[in-house]
């Protein structure tokens, strides 16, 4: 069941955004993306990639150095003031001394009662802990209370900055179930994570960012295809790059003397074929699969890779 939205403006416009901090750190480096209404999008990247800066910018907590940021067709600060967006920022503690019910009651009133207390408690799964003081909550409970606060204004657009970091598996699963319920009711959700599996399981689209740039933007299947890439390293006498490039799954080969580094989209197919060539392969290592590896694959595995550093080394990449 999706809410009808007559407003066709994108939920988020993030155009050519640069954020440079004092001291020369560039957190966002001409990053651009758009998010349509009703999408659930993951902002995936390693720590320090610029995810939090991007989310803070969309929440009006930071001003970009240059570029355009619009949420629901508005300047972020206006959308916040109008109570149209909700968010869980990355380091967002709770006020000491308050009880869960008081805190949620306060936020209900700040948003002029757009949701009832009972509904909010229910949506965030905190009904049983409503009488507790915030100091007594576990990590998972704290995050769910913060989730309730983010939902208090019945937001059209919800930002979640690494909401499940530091939660155990069970708390994590519970949390994402709650997010899913909200998304199914038509709320646009943008969440940041550095876990590929979390992005894959909970988003319909993944935007990969690293060093402040958007590296990839596509469906989880598309992103995962890149991350399935494994790096195979070995040594063999006088390796022939073009022969190796012909092996199943191999997308790129680089040779430095006896040392060979191959990238393969299907290591399970590549390895038997490699051994079948009957070459004296030694010191074989298969690595990769992590997000960092995926990012390397995304930045270098796009067919434009052509570093050639000397007589004894060469790099070959399959076209396409």
């Amino acid at each position, binding site marked *: 069941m999706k809410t009808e939205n007559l407003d066709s403006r994108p939920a988020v416009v993030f155009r050519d955004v640069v954020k440079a901090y004092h001291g020369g750190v560039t957190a966002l480096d001409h990053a651009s993306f758009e998010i349509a209404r009703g999408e659930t999008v993951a902002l995936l990247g390693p720590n320090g990639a610029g995810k939090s800066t991007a989310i803070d910018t969309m*929440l*009006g*907590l*930071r*001003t970009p150095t240059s570029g355009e940021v619009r949420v629901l067709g508005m300047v972020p600060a206006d959308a*916040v*003031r*109008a*109570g149209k*967006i*909700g*968010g*869980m*920022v*990355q*380091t*967002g*503690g*709770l*006020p*000491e*001394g*308050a009880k869960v019910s*008081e*805190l949620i*009651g*306060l*936020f209900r*009133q*700040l*948003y002029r009662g757009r949701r009832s207390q009972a509904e909010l408690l229910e949506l965030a799964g905190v009904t049983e802990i409503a009488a507790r*003081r915030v100091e007594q909550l576990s990590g998972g409970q704290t995050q769910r209370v*913060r989730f309730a*606060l983010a939902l*208090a*204004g019945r937001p059209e657009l919800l930002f979640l900055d690494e909401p499940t970091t530091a939660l155990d598996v069970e708390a994590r699963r519970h949390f994402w179930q709650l997010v899913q319920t909200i998304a199914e009711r038509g709320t646009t959700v943008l969440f940041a994570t550095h876990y590929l599996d979390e992005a894959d399981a909970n988003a319909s689209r993944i935007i990969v960012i690293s060093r402040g740039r958007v590296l990839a933007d596509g469906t989880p299947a598309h992103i995962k295809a890149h991350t399935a890439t494994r790096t195979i390293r070995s040594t063999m006498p006088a390796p022939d790059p073009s022969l190796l490039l012909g092996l199943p799954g191999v997308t790129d080969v680089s040779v430095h003397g006896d040392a060979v580094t191959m990238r393969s989209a299907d290591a399970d197919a590549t390895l038997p074929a490699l051994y079948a060539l009957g070459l004296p392969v030694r010191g074989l290592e298969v690595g990769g699969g992590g997000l960092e590896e995926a990012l390397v694959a995304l930045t270098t595995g796009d067919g434009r890779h052509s570093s050639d550093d000397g007589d004894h080394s060469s790099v070959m990449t399959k076209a396409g």
Partner: protein
Amino acid sequence: MIAFLRFEILRTLRNARFLIMLLAFPVLLYVIYAKQHGTSQGLTVASLLLVSMAVYSGMGSAMFASGPQLARERQNGWMRQLRISPISTRGWFAAKLAQSILLIIPGLLALVALALTYGHVHLAAGRLGLLVLVLVLGAIPFCALGLVIGLMFDGQTAQVAQMITLLVLAFLGGIFIQWSSLPHAMQLIGKALPSYHLAQLGWNAAAGHALGMTDIAALAAWTAALAGIAVWRWRQESTAA
């Protein structure tokens, strides 16, 4: 804003330890010294000390009601969460000031009650009313000072910064030691501080003397300056960082 104020007061009151600590010191000092004989500035020791301790308690409560908590909650991220809610800057400041003002009242009432009973202080209702009014309104610059400290320091250092500030204000302002017995250079500094002017206003109110316009103007100037700094820090933190 009312909802926010109620929420803030409720949770602050729950931290009873903080309130007791704030109250205990001036009450204890009053109990120890109020029975001394003598008069000064047309006031008995018991009356004089009521004003001193009430000023001290008012300054302390006003500053501690919001400052260290604000510093901790800027650090733990609660303030960021609050900033992405529709609460306005003006509403937040108004609520914080109101919170600080309201939290000086328990200490003030306790000291007045103690003075009237234990200290045998006899003040006409009019004088007493004016004194309470002076002490409450005069606490406003210290509320702003608490916010400034809460916005400038982190959770660990704000408490210490407040304690030092409070002691400097109390000693140089002539609350713990007679101002006229301070070294000359310190007198000059003391005379510039809001604590000095609030104490003067308090003693004048209790003695039935006219309130000094200079004292009122000085407190107003301090309020404006400190509120300006607080708003500047708030804005700076909400956009630049």
